[in-house]
């Protein structure tokens, strides 16, 4: 992908603020410092098992949310079918690992392959639909996926597939085996950094700029020689492996997969993770996933009440401040001068 000279338009309040004003040294060291700091977060919080479990889940759910973020923030379409890619990645992993004894790298290839194929089919089928028809078809795809998975003996039915082995990656001098959440953390964090870097690259890429143009003004984009439909399908297909990657990791972290991966819970979670902080922010989905996971893991009110919290938070933010928490922040700072 070649770089365009155009800088992508930013959402009101979006983007990294003040990047140009910072001294060069700070600018160069900013990201490495943030990465080191991020890696040390569980240690700084005390390093208990509970903390490690929470941060690993935050990383996994953040990656999952980055998948839908690409479509929601940059394409401006509401995909309600991304649970299909998330669950597809997890199920593909579980099937090949449990039934055929594949290792993590081959299972990753399988997961990416399966979800990309799903995304191509769904993307091409919805190529002529927009707005609510697109959303409805993707939503229907996820619900149908749920019924199929729940009733398929091959996929374990309502019980799902249990016994996904430990995540064991080839390493210098043997294998790195993630037995605990603490041992899982370096892998989860590494993948998270990789995905954020990918999103940052995407935002500056020709495809990212084109997607934003197609969202803002499809007619204008067409006159500038952009194939809007092709852009939509490409971005949609690109987003699927990101969610699939999260599913792959989740299968190992949880050591089983079940149809709940396709439930409305994960759909609402990924949507809220993107929308709550504010759309089109590079670190938005990570922040959103962190807030939501912290509530559910550390301050849970029980399953049904958590549904009310998640649904209520998403509805409230959309009704009160469609630009998310950043939008609220900007309103406050503007008022105070």
């Amino acid at each position, binding site marked *: 992908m070649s770089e365009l000279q155009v800088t992508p338009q930013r959402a009101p309040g979006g983007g990294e603020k003040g990047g140009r004003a910072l001294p060069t040294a700070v600018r160069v060291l900013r990201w490495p410092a943030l990465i080191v700091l991020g890696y040390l977060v569980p240690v700084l919080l005390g390093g208990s098992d509970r903390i490690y479990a929470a941060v690993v889940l935050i990383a996994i759910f953040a990656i999952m949310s980055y998948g839908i973020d690409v479509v929601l923030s940059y394409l401006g379409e509401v995909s309600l079918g991304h649970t299909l890619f998330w669950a597809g990645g997890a199920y593909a992993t579980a099937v090949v690992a449990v039934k055929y004894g594949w290792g993590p790298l081959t299972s990753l290839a399988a997961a990416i392959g399966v979800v990309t194929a799903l995304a191509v089919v769904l993307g091409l089928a919805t190529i002529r639909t927009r707005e609510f*028809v697109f959303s*409805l078809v993707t*939503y*229907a795809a996820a619900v149908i996926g749920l019924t*199929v998975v729940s009733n398929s003996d091959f996929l374990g039915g309502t019980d799902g597939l249990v016994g996904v082995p430990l995540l064991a990656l080839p390493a210098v001098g043997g294998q790195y085996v993630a037995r605990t959440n603490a041992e899982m953390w370096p892998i989860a964090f590494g993948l998270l950094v990789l995905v954020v870097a990918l999103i940052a690259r995407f935002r500056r890429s020709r495809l990212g700029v084109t997607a934003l143009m197609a969202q803002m003004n499809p007619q204008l984009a067409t006159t500038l020689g952009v194939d809007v439909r092709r852009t939509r399908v490409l971005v949609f297909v690109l987003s699927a492996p990101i969610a699939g990657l999260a599913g792959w990791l989740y299968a190992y972290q949880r050591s089983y997969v079940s149809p709940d991966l396709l439930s409305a819970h994960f759909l609402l979670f990924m949507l809220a993770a993107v929308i709550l902080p504010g759309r089109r922010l590079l670190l938005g989905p990570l922040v959103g996933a962190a807030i939501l996971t912290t509530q559910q893991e550390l301050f849970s009110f029980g399953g049904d009440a958590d*549904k*009310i919290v998640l649904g209520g938070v998403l509805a409230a933010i959309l009704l009160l401040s*469609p630009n998310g928490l950043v939008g609220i922040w900007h309103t406050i700072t503007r008022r105070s001068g």
Partner: protein
Amino acid sequence: MRVLDQLVNGLALGAGYALLAVGWTVLLGAARLVNFAHGQLYMLGAFVTWWACTALGVPYLVAIPIALVAVGVLGAVMQLALTRLVVEQNIVSLMLVTLAFGYLLQGSAALVFGGNPQQIPSPFSSQNVAIGSARFTQQDVLIIVAALALYAVTFYVLSRTGIGRIVRGVAEDPKLAQLYGIDAARVYLGVFVFAALSAALAGAIIAPRSPILTSIGFDEVIITFLVVVLGGIGSVLGNLVTGFGLGFFVALFGAFFPPAYSMAAAFAVLLIVLVVRPEGLRIR
């Protein structure tokens, strides 16, 4: 004979699907509002009916209006929260908010009504009617009659009355409607409440066919959506036809294949239709 049984079953199923879809298609046509909580309103219609029958001890036919009032009020509250988004035609936010509302309602219903499957005690479910070798219950007859009656009324009101002209006008151009002295926000409220009432009615009279769970709304909206998109958005007659068509399809499919996959098969048909004819099978 098996096929005849399934055709009769398909008639009742199809009437149910059509009943579930009528409010949604009017809402989508008039207000361009996709209500993802429609299935949860259906679920609440069913559960309030069950609650009124069992907790209040009122007869089934008295429980239905109680459910209608409860869900109608809830619908009005939802629409009042949504008014600004509808007037701005912020379709993305509307979809997401209604999805969130649905999830919120599902969680609330689970807290209030519990997580166990329940059965609405309708006196009509046990009364059989036989046509030749095929049997169906009075409940099935009730569903078919209610669906046909509601469609007839909706069609008449939309095409022949002053209210219908107003709704069609707002559907075409809400901004222009203001100049005709029409308060579009009130029309949206009315249409939304109508949609909520029809969902509740569907829940109250279709749900006695099988046990109900607070999670059923999730699937119901898919059926609605299949009917509406295949029938043509906003086309009342198209929805009636596709509702019955889908009913027969599901019934016959279930006779020869595992019934769990019937919706998946219907969805596959939809995908093919969308590729070939994105505007649906509109009947004008």
